[in-house]
């Protein structure tokens, strides 16, 4: 036993870049670290910083479609969207799981969610050359939107898979419901926050870029309004004139 104490000591917690590298190369090891509860605060700080930087890069890439000051606007807004959504939604995973008998620590769950989102954000950064390619070949606005949605869907799916993997390892009761609840809450909050801080990808012929649009309605107000309009129920005489299409 004493000889064992003298052997090579366990490595110290890695610096931030090494932690990000671990996240990319060996997510099982990252999940094991989070489950062990080692250095959760350091993991949290690193993942938050990763999300901030990567989403700024993705935002800049999206803003480059319009160019000019829109690059800075989108680079500033996208990190706010993802971090804000995470801050409001992540506790739901622990809360719903705890309600159903899942015994976990809130700190470990928060670190898991942030690590998964950081992984998704890193995948999005890997997609920025495709965004730049779309810009360089003058891909039309709507196709560009669809392509961006597809990229976000792939990255989001990868992040969700990591969360499911991390939570499923415990085989605790109610974990599926907890993850499903997190997805629902995340989608609703993220949708609303993204809607409130739009636009990101502004078509080149749009008028002067603005940081955020005037808040006439929320996402859900807009959806319910559209549903009413589809049923022939209108609340105004005519829709405001939109900008010219591309």
């Amino acid at each position, binding site marked *: 036993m004493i000889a064992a104490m003298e052997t090579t000591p366990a490595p110290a917690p890695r610096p931030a870049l090494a932690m990000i590298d671990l996240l990319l190369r060996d997510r099982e090891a990252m999940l094991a670290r989070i489950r062990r509860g080692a250095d959760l605060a350091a993991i949290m700080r690193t993942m938050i910083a990763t999300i901030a930087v990567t989403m700024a890069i993705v935002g800049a890439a999206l803003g480059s479609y319009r160019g000019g000051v829109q690059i800075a606007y989108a680079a500033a807004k996208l990190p706010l969207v993802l971090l804000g959504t995470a801050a*409001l*939604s992540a506790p739901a995973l622990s809360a719903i799981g*705890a309600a159903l*008998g899942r015994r976990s620590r809130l700190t470990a769950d928060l670190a898991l969610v942030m690590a998964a989102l950081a992984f998704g954000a890193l995948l999005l950064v890997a997609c920025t050359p495709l965004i730049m390619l779309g810009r360089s070949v003058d891909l039309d606005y709507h196709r560009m939107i669809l392509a961006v949605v597809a990229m976000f869907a792939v990255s989001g799916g990868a992040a969700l898979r990591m969360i499911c993997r991390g939570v499923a390892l415990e085989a605790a009761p109610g974990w599926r419901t907890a993850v499903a609840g997190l997805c629902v809450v995340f989608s*609703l909050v993220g949708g*609303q926050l993204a809607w409130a801080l739009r636009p990101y990808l502004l078509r080149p012929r749009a008028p002067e870029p603005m940081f955020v649009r005037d808040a006439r*309605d929320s996402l*859900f107000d807009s959806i319910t309004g559209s549903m009413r309009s589809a049923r022939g129920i209108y609340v105004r005489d005519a829709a405001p004139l939109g900008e010219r299409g591309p």
Partner: protein
Amino acid sequence: MSVATQAPFPVSRGLAIALAAAGPVAVGGILAARAHDASPMLAAPAIVFGVVAATGPALYIATAAAGNAPPLAAVIRAFGVALGAFGLALAGLLLPAAFLSLSAVSAATTLTATTGTVAIAGYLGLRRLATELKAQSPDPGIQPSLAGGLVFLVWAVATAAIAGRLWWDLAVEVVS
């Protein structure tokens, strides 16, 4: 290991029950902020605890008559755990609900967000109650009886409908 041999929550049971009391107050506070009327903050917890107090004994009587009831103390404990589960779920859903409600322009979104929050927390509480009662039942290893399951289902639907109706009437009156 059955649920009964573990502490029911990762937090103390007292804290969970306190959340069950504070959670509805907070959800009522979201409505109050929207409508500039503080009455939902008192009415919401009154609805939660009032409905549970009013319908809880009926569940015990019905399951006992169906021959599937745990001891009375175990049933009371199960209700306590279920209320704690309700409070914990509300605690985690409060921030998203507050954001969605307060950032919305129309009252319908506020109604939907707060009602959805209370409904989801209520569903989780009922689900936890079913789990606890099953774990505490006289023969947990044996398949629960159809009668016992039916009794619980009918009771759960009735309780949810009563509480839901009271909540909806309150919310619509305050927000509209």
